[in-house]
């Protein structure tokens, strides 16, 4: 695989994996990716030090790093992050299982499609966050509402893509497999499932991104005692911009890691290797 390929494969993902060819040195790639951040940081620092804005609202990087360090060492930031990740995994886990099952059922059976499609198409265009007040009203403030909402919202793209994926399985694969004696059960396991996998993975990836966005927001609204969203929101009251920026940085890192370490890897091992997604 050439550099070019790797870059395009990550285009849907986020950070372009600027993997250089084996001969190149990895730190050169690292520097190349880091220098824009250095430039931006320098600009930030310049503006902060010029004193154009109140220091409380526009702290220098030194202050932000100090806050980050203080919060990390005291274990507060890790605790917030752990709670957030737990909610994410719980909510997304529910959505992944339920969503893939419903989506496949819709793709396989006309009856299931007729039943679920209207419900899904009505529910999907409403932004997930708009359900938040309703969920809080019905299920109360706290963890249960947050996880349920995350699961509910992230299920839509998963259902939709699994359904499309099953529908998009090539007729010629089905015919070939039938000619080779695959019964319905085997057809499903050996042909429909792998054939629909590119779509299912796309759905899971979109679902996770959705879950992530909604979770941060719902943590602000649901008055949970811990969580990164809550930390950022709480910091506002005391004008702790430094705490806020630390929280945002952690959110960015977690979001990036989920994308890079989890999904890109799964894709490389399956659909990219099979040539079903242009790498």
């Amino acid at each position, binding site marked *: 695989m050439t550099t070019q390929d790797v870059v395009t494969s990550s285009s849907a993902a986020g950070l372009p994996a600027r993997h250089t060819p084996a001969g190149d040195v990895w730190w050169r790639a690292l520097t190349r990716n880091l220098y824009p951040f250095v430039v931006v940081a320098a600009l930030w620092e310049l503006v902060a030090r010029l004193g154009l804005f109140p220091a409380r609202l526009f702290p220098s990087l030194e202050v932000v790093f100090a806050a980050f360090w203080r919060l990390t060492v005291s274990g507060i930031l890790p605790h917030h992050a752990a709670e957030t990740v737990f909610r994410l995994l719980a909510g997304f886990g529910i959505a992944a299982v339920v969503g893939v099952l419903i989506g496949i059922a819709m793709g396989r059976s006309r009856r299931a499609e007729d039943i679920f499609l209207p419900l899904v198409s009505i529910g999907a265009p409403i932004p997930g966050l708009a359900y938040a007040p309703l969920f809080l009203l019905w299920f109360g403030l706290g963890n249960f509402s947050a996880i349920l909402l995350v699961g509910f919202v992230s299920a839509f793209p998963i259902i939709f893509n699994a359904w499309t994926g099953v529908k998009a399985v090539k007729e010629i694969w089905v015919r070939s497999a039938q000619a*080779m004696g695959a019964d319905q059960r085997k057809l499903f396991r050996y042909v429909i499932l*792998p054939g629909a996998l590119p779509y299912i993975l796309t759905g899971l990836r979109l679902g996770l991104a959705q879950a992530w966005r909604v979770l941060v927001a719902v943590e602000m609204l649901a008055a949970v005692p811990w969580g990164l969203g809550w930390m950022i929101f709480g910091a506002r009251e005391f004008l702790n911009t430094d705490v806020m920026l630390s929280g945002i940085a952690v959110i960015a890192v977690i979001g990036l890691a989920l994308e890079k370490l989890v999904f890109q890897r799964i894709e490389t091992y399956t659909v990219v290797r099979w040539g079903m997604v242009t790498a």
Partner: protein
Amino acid sequence: MLPIEVRDVSLEYDTPAGRVQGVKGASFGMQASEFLCIVGPSGCGKSTLLNIIAGFLTPTSGEIRIGGKAVNGHGMDRGVVFQDFAQLFPWRTALGNVTFGLEMKGVPKAEREEIARKQLALVKLEKFMDAYPHHLSGGMQQRVAIARALAYDPAVLLMDEPFAALDAMTRDDMQRLLADVWHKTRKTVIYVTHNVAEAVYLADRVIVMTPHPGQVKAEIPIDLPRPRDPLSVEFLDTQKRLLSHLGGTAIPAAA
């Protein structure tokens, strides 16, 4: 009793433009190990007929008998190779594709891989066992498809213009390879094509079909000695004779 018999098969279907007779009263029988080509212009129903024999379409009337029994739907007594390269499963390697039918039959892993390896060797692809289809050229993919259809040892091999989407040079190579494979395996083959030279090169017998409605117009035995030389006078004569049966209907230039 003939190993394969097609008895008075017809298929009609509805289109927005009205009822269409796709195949009308097709009848023929086949000897074991015979190589039969069905030739005709596009739209003459030859592919439809093959799909009926394969069991993907149900005829409006008539029946297909294999080994004396009427067959209904698809079954492992028939192997199918389509024209579309995409027929291979992209998530399986060449070997994985070839073992598929055996896996469905429940053949143990070691044994089915052994068989698949032999089949891949037969189509000269043993070096590419572990390659995924998207790494293979069109011709190689079609060879995997042939190996895959042969692997579970069906009574008859059905081929629907398998080389039509290949370039002329590759197609020539593939025809030679197929003749060779057929010579070694002695399979009964039904081969659909619109290419007259291809039919003369491969077939023991050619069935000519005409469109509107799709009907069997002539049956021509081809008894040229094998391996055949496409440049010999006899070959070209046979080709001309076949073309005349097609009644001057537009046939793509024989490659």
